[in-house]
């Protein structure tokens, strides 16, 4: 597959701080947060004009699932658009709460763990051919994912416990995984979830659902995370011999590796060897380099992925974390925590440093520490602010999401009841003409055009609004109407 469809789902943590009074509990705060969503779509589980999905999930976590993307920078922009969307909703929720007498600050954190060790996820979906041998997923992909935290961990200060003092870990999620491969999610979180809903032609594709990843803030870390995983999948799909790193106990291994920033902790393989995380990653990187040399780069960022992959392994094995201090989340965060600690003479167990750890993931564009670092040149960018803002309203142009976005925005413009999900497109009054679009790379569909034409003369009646016109609408930007119907009154002016 030269073009692979990838998506990422992010669960956000939220906390309301009430100032004088006690803040609202997360469930209450989540209800305020989703009030504009409910008003817009009469549900707290909706597909929005940019083709993504916005919903309240298990445990009252606000969740955003990016539209299906086939270009890494689109995926990064769409994921980051999710942060902007959550922030927009948070600002409105604060105002609504204040109006009800609950003045305070609402924090939305794109992290994976709270102060009591509750965890919530960042789930990746990769479309893979159904012919992929499941066996190779456990012998190659699982060890890759167990050790991928070196490349893409968000970093965490682990509080003192069980006789070990406070210390750094690569990953926020590693301690919360309980199985290698299984069908469970909350009950026994597996690294690879076998829930197989491809949202595509199930005879040809299956969905690889990876729930081991940390939520990333850094764009270069995202590039490395998705880019390296795609390369490993490509090699598996091509049948390239990749050796066997099957681990004796992936769950013990993932924890051991997470808590050892030197990357030298050895873990047993099934065939009785002992390998380090760097061993596994370096072997796969070496094969990936050879694979790319032989088959050519299949997208424009392959060289950047390989370069950062190598540099990160070098940083871990040499202990010179400065090599990646602007590019990989755990190292960006650790550098800042160390700077704050040095100024205040703080030890790693100081609450201030855990606060820095958490605030790194705050989605607030001014207050969030990752944003502060980025503005000061301490984090490398790949997509600019304009691209992210556009991604809050515009679906990726190269996938089915573009059809979904246009379908739902057109139906809304004509005031017609409709239902959409990843594959389904239905006008409620015309159930027999519902369209199942099983090709996630489809960007043209004559049947959909014919169906939408029945709603009215689109060319004559619909005027597509630009970004600023949409921003001027009173609701959240992501939920703004894409079309104005000619002859209809203009949308309400913004509330002042």
């Amino acid at each position, binding site marked *: 597959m030269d073009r692979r469809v990838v998506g990422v789902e992010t669960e956000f943590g939220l906390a309301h701080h009430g100032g004088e009074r006690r803040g609202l509990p997360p469930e209450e705060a989540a209800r305020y947060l989703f009030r504009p969503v409910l008003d817009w779509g009469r549900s707290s589980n909706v597909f929005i004009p940019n083709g993504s999905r916005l919903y309240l999930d298990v445990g009252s*976590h606000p969740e955003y699932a990016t539209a299906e993307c086939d270009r890494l920078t689109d995926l990064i922009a769409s994921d980051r658009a999710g942060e902007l969307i959550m922030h927009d909703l948070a600002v409105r929720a604060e105002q609504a709460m204040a109006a009800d007498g609950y003045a305070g600050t609402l924090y939305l954190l794109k992290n994976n763990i709270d102060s009591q060790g509750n965890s919530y996820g960042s789930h990746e979906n990769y479309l893979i051919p159904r012919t992929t041998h499941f066996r190779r997923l456990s012998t190659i992909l699982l060890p890759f994912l167990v050790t991928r935290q070196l490349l893409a961990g968000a970093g965490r200060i682990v509080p003192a416990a069980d006789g070990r003092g406070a210390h750094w870990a690569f990953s926020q999620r590693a301690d919360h995984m309980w199985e290698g491969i299984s069908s469970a999610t909350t009950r026994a979180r597996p690294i690879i979830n076998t829930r197989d809903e491809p949202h595509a032609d199930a005879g040809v594709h299956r969905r690889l659902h990876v729930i081991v990843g940390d939520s990333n803030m850094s764009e270069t870390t995202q590039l490395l995370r998705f880019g390296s995983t795609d390369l490993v999948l490509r090699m598996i799909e091509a049948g390239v011999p990749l050796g066997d790193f099957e681990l004796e106990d992936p769950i013990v291994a993932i924890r051991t590796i997470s808590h050892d920033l030197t990357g030298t902790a050895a873990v047993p393989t099934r065939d009785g060897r002992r390998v380090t995380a760097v061993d596994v990653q370096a072997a796969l990187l070496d094969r990936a380099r050879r694979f790319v040399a032989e088959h050519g780069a299949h997208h424009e960022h392959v060289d950047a992925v390989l370069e950062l992959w190598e540099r990160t392994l070098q940083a871990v094995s040499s202990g010179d974390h400065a090599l990646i201090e602007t590019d990989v989340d755990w190292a960006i965060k650790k550098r800042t925590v160390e700077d704050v600690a040095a100024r205040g003479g703080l030890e790693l167990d100081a609450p201030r440093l855990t606060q820095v750890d958490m605030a790194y993931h705050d989605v607030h564009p001014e207050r969030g520490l990752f944003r502060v670092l980025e503005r000061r040149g301490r984090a490398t960018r790949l997509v600019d602010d304009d691209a992210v803002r556009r991604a809050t309203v515009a679906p990726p142009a190269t996938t089915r999401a573009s059809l979904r976005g246009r379908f739902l925005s057109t139906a809304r413009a004509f005031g017609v009841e409709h239902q959409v999900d990843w594959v389904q497109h239905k006008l409620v009054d015309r159930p027999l003409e519902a369209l199942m679009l099983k090709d996630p790379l489809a960007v043209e569909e004559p049947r959909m055009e014919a169906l939408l034409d029945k709603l009215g003369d689109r060319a004559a009646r619909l005027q597509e609004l630009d970004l600023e016109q949409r921003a001027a609408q009173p609701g959240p930007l992501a939920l703004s109407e894409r079309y104005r119907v000619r002859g209809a009154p203009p949308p309400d002016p913004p509330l002042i």
Partner: protein
Amino acid sequence: MAPHTQGGAERRPQDARQEETVDGGPGAGDAGAAGGSAQARQQAEELDGLLDEIDSVLESNAEEFVRGFVQKGGQ
């Protein structure tokens, strides 16, 4: 193929570090040392600015902030 601009951006930190080593390294001439200290002063100012900004955006009661951040588990 990787766009050169992007590769360049990613290598910036390495270049910056190499300059540091050269400036502060043994055998640096007077001009180099003066340049190095100016650069070091600028870096210290930037770091101070960053740490001040971090102080200004974080809630003052760190312990309360951390303890108050409690969620239910998700997936």
